């Protein structure tokens, strides 16, 4: 193989390698196995030691606002809050978006259970860091720390 052939092969290899690195992140797709569903539910949920559902819901709204999400709907009776955030990046013509649905419901007589479902560009987010960041911020807003649940 001459020099030009080697360069061509290297360029093609680099091209394919960079294409592979551009592939969608691992959170793409919907989970199907019960084990992973359970795992996801666990990272999406925290229990807080309070009986005041409204205070928790207001804390959720405030946290989402601090994280620069736009509140789209809130329903005290159902215990749900939906919010959305767009991220515009230089050089990209399409905005990426993340939607959040948070539900708050009583757990026993002394706790409130908060569950967050996040979608990134209409795909479920499985990255625990996303949920962890939200619950840390919510804990600060409520002056309470969330407990992991099984």
């Amino acid at each position: 193989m001459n020099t030009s052939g080697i360069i061509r092969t290297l360029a093609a290899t680099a091209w394919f390698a960079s294409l592979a690195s551009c592939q969608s992140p691992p959170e793409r797709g919907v989970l199907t196995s019960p084990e992973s569903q359970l795992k996801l539910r666990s990272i999406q949920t925290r229990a807080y030691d309070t009986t005041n559902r409204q205070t928790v819901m207001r804390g959720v709204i405030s946290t989402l606002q601090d994280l620069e999400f736009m509140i789209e709907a809130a329903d005290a009776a159902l215990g749900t809050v939906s919010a959305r955030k767009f991220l515009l990046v230089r050089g990209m013509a399409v905005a990426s978006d993340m939607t959040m649905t948070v539900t708050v419901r009583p757990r026993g007589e002394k706790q409130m259970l908060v569950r967050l479902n996040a979608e990134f560009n209409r795909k479920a987010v499985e990255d625990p860091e996303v949920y962890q960041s939200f619950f840390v911020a919510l804990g600060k807003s409520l002056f309470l720390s969330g407990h992991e649940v099984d």
Partner: protein
Amino acid sequence: MLLRLAALAALLVLAYGCATKPVPAQFMEVSPQSAPNREVQTRRFGDASESELLAASVGVVQDLGFRVMASDAQLGVVTGVKQRPSEEVLIDIFPLALSAGLTFGLHPPEANLGPHDSFRVVLAMRNVGGQPRVHDVRITFYRTWLVQGVHGPEQRMRGAMAITSPVLYQKFFGMLSATLARARSGN
């Protein structure tokens, strides 16, 4: 030589694309502007019940030409939308195109979406320290970009950016205080 340059250029373009693509964790980062924005968007009212404040806020939002989309009195939340007149949107196209041309692509990223065609507003209240007549009112105005739905008349959002101009928020809270005072005096 040309082949080498082309391969290098392609790699750089691809690498740039990959590096700038947002990932979910980025959405949870609190920007340095978050605290100053919250300050501008929030006002504490020391002598008003939540229902008084909510009614006055809805009145101001309507005075500003917004259509109330959703509200929940128990949570103290109101959201609204306002369409921009199409002639205003058209007027914005030229300066945006000029800015994109003059800055050689270094224009703000939102300019890629074109002129915004609507506004949104989100208002939320929170009681302070358990005192029944002390509340923080937080309002955020957004520029939004809509697109017509494929399967029906409904529009869906394709972009939104919070408006950070302090003047806008000062004006809103001024109007809210005036509306509260009017409501108390029975006008």
